[in-house]
């Protein structure tokens, strides 16, 4: 202890004596302390910040830990959740400047309004065309009540889906989707059943698209033919007279009949266009012509080209809203309230056919298989529930608006409300210009969405069965042939999109909307020991509703 000690670190500059004065400027003012960058040297657009204390000490730790293991050893490498967010990471250049790291593609954060719009855009589907018909099937008042209730119900179930990954402890669920959650809780059964039901909704949508596209193509072709040949069609179809013509394509239907199966037939109009009608028929030929257009598009390897056209969907919905408003304005309202009995022109306000509406609405409000992914890019995650509710509100209002306006303005004294078609555009003659524009536009839009849906089906099915998204041309082609065949058969024999929507909606809604979210919530509560009987009762009731919804489609 008495020894003179020598400093372990000799002075760096040879010949320089160790002075006692202590005012030694051994550090060059320009050389920086480790891990310190002057604010003026940080190159970025925003106001530069100093390094935060947490980042500073984390850097110290990482430096130290890296000395404790070999360079290839991954034992003490910081895991992802510990590394600061990209906004806090600076890249140093040896000259003393530092650049901020641009966020990776996974960290795109959208403001609430963009998220709400994305949800609205994704949810808006072909069900909008069936809204008036479904409200008619349930009765006007009951229809409105059911629309609001189903909206709230599906919103609650969607909220459950959104919250389901959060209750999983000890696992990083940041890139999980709902099928992954199902797999966690139910094992392989959960994975396959959620895939299966998701497929039901997708393939159901594709079949509806085929039917609608045949319809629109047929009407567009007819309009062009009639315009080119100056043929007037006004006498051949049963409908109103006057400038705003509304037609009833199947006036032989008994009002109040429970039968929703419709048979298509060729109408003989006797105007000499028999040859054209023979080769251009809504059910017999046009669905097959579509194959030539769409089957090649389905076989594209990547769907990113088609993803650019999603804005068309928004424009078409906006145009439909405009069209509906215009028609309602010109036709005026024709509403009479008969509560339980049906009359010649009106339907009862409360009808037993209401399950058809619930089935359609299940698909109309369906977004449960991708809500987690959509919400991930929301900038303020704490507002997720609020934004979801606003999106559902807007979707519900849109559907309500279209349904109520068309139903209300349907000219009932000459026509019966029962005439409202599952695709309300069918109630307008093919000579109507505005509706022609709507049809042509929707046709174009659906042509761009159809390959996207096919791509989603392919990715999920091929990914699960073969492990790869594109196992081979033959596999993909076979799948596409099956999907197209389903569409063509439906278009030929059963082109009632209302029925297709309600069956597929009730079926996939059973699993993905009602059963899985409720069961998962109850299981997670039970694991925490917090399951109370009112909650268990309520969620079991939801499951029963889902089952009843499905059964109702078959019996009503």
């Amino acid at each position, binding site marked *: 202890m008495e020894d003179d000690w020598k400093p372990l670190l000799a002075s760096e500059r040879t010949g320089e004596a160790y002075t006692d004065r*202590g*005012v030694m400027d*051994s550090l060059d003012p320009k050389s920086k302390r480790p891990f310190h960058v002057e604010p003026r040297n940080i190159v970025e657009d925003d106001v530069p910040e100093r390094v935060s204390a947490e980042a500073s000490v984390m850097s*110290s730790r990482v430096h*130290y830990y890296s000395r*404790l293991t070999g360079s290839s050893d991954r034992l003490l490498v910081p895991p992802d*959740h510990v590394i600061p967010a990209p906004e806090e990471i600076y890249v140093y250049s040896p000259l003393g400047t530092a650049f901020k790291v641009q966020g990776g593609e996974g960290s795109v954060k959208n403001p609430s309004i963009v998220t709400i719009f994305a949800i609205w855009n994704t949810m808006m589907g072909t069900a909008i065309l069936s809204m008036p018909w479904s409200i008619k099937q349930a009765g006007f008042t009951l229809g409105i009540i059911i629309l609001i209730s189903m909206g709230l119900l599906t919103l609650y179930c969607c909220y459950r889906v959104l919250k389901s990954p959060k209750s999983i402890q000890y696992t990083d669920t940041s890139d999980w989707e709902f099928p992954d959650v199902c797999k966690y809780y139910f094992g392989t059964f959960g994975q396959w059943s959620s895939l299966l039901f998701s497929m039901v909704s997708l393939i159901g949508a594709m079949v509806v698209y085929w039917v609608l596209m045949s319809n629109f193509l047929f009407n567009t072709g007819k309009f062009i033919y009639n315009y080119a040949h100056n043929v007037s069609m006004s006498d051949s179809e049963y409908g109103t007279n006057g400038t705003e013509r509304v037609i009833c394509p199947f006036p032989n239907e008994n009002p109040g009949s429970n039968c929703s199966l419709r048979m298509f037939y060729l109408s003989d109009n006797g105007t000499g266009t028999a040859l054209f009608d023979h080769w251009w028929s809504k059910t017999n030929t046009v669905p097959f012509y579509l194959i030539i257009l769409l089957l090649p598009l389905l076989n594209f390897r990547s769907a990113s080209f088609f993803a650019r056209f999603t804005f068309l969907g928004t424009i078409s919905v906006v145009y439909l809203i405009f069209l509906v408003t215009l028609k309602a304005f010109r036709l005026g309202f024709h509403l009479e309230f008969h509560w339980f009995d049906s009359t010649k022109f009106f339907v009862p306000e409360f009808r037993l056919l209401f399950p058809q509406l619930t089935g359609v609405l299940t698909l109309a409000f369906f977004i449960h298989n991708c809500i987690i992914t959509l919400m991930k890019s929301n900038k303020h995650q704490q507002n997720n529930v609020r934004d979801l509710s606003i999106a559902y509100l807007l979707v519900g209002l849109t559907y309500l608006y279209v349904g109520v306006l068309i139903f209300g303005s349907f000219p009932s004294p000459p026509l019966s409300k029962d005439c409202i078609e599952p695709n309300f555009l069918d109630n307008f003659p093919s000579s109507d210009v505005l509706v022609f524009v709507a049809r042509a536009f929707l046709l174009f839009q659906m042509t761009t969405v159809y390959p996207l849906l096919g791509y989603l089906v392919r990715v999920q099915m091929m990914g699960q069965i073969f492990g790869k998204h594109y196992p081979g041309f033959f596999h993909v082609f076979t799948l596409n042939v099956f999907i197209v065949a389903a569409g063509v058969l439906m278009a030929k024999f059963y082109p009632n999109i209302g029925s297709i929507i309600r069956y597929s909606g009730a079926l996939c809604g059973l699993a993905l909307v009602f059963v899985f979210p409720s069961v998962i919530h109850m299981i997670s509560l039970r694991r925490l020991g917090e399951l109370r009987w009112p909650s268990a009762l309520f969620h079991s009731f939801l499951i029963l509703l889902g089952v009843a919804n499905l059964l109702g489609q078959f019996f009503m």
Partner: protein
Amino acid sequence: MSSTAMKKKVLLMGKSGSGKTSMRSIIFANYIARDTRRLGATIDVEHSHVRFLGNLVLNLWDCGGQDTFMENYFTSQRDNIFRNVEVLIYVFDVESRELDKDMHYYQSCLEAILQNSPDAKVFCLVHKMDLVQEDQRDVIFKERGEDLKRLSRPLSCVCFRTSIWDETLYKAWSSIVYQLIPNVQQLESNLRNFAQIIEADEVLLFERATFLVISHYQCREQRDAHRFEKISNIIKQFKLSCSKLAASFQSMEVRNSNFAAFIDVFTSNTYVMVIMSDPSIPSAATLINIRNARKHFEKLERVDGPKHSLHMRMH
């Protein structure tokens, strides 16, 4: 006391994979060579020949290996392992799916402690807390802590939550060391006097082997709350570099126009770091002060020597 007195042990125990080797490596600046990172359970006790707080030797054990060989060895060597234990540090992996099994092994360790070294101090570390979501950490730790306290009766255990990726590991081990130093309050008041006499901005007392801060005095608020851990990391890195040259670290002086910092050996178990913000005071003056204080603090440590279980040896 003869110099061959039985060495007291610090047992670092826990299930295989709970993070003990990493923890030991980080705290003691032990290089983890590839081959010592085994995939199976620790069969042999891992001695680290580090003087930790005087005469303590760190032993690392895996508890509850799947191997029946491991289990038998454990039971037959039990008394040997648990004799002369000064401190038991038990590490729990917060992510563990087999909580009951963990508690069972913990309890059997406690039984062995009660039989062989009933005066041992018990510390429980709930480790890998960074894997738990931030809003759940307090709740989970509180729950575990209460369970452990209940299970540990009649022994009393102190629980900490730790993670190698934040300051909790360093703070937990600092607290452990703090509780193991005898007459630590007296040490602290003397440190305060010392600091005021030599007009230092801050004086830190580090444990010698691990550079964990035992005690510190500061005369005004400092900006960086993490400075203790950072200094510890820097010095340990420097020690690692020194050991590569077969040199050992003894002291350091860092000086610029704003401050002067001195790190030097203090007592047989501690290092001191003195920070002076008045650069006009010559180094030699501070060094003389430190040297004189050294004698005083050594006397302090030796005073209660035979009565306490921590034996300090004079050079």
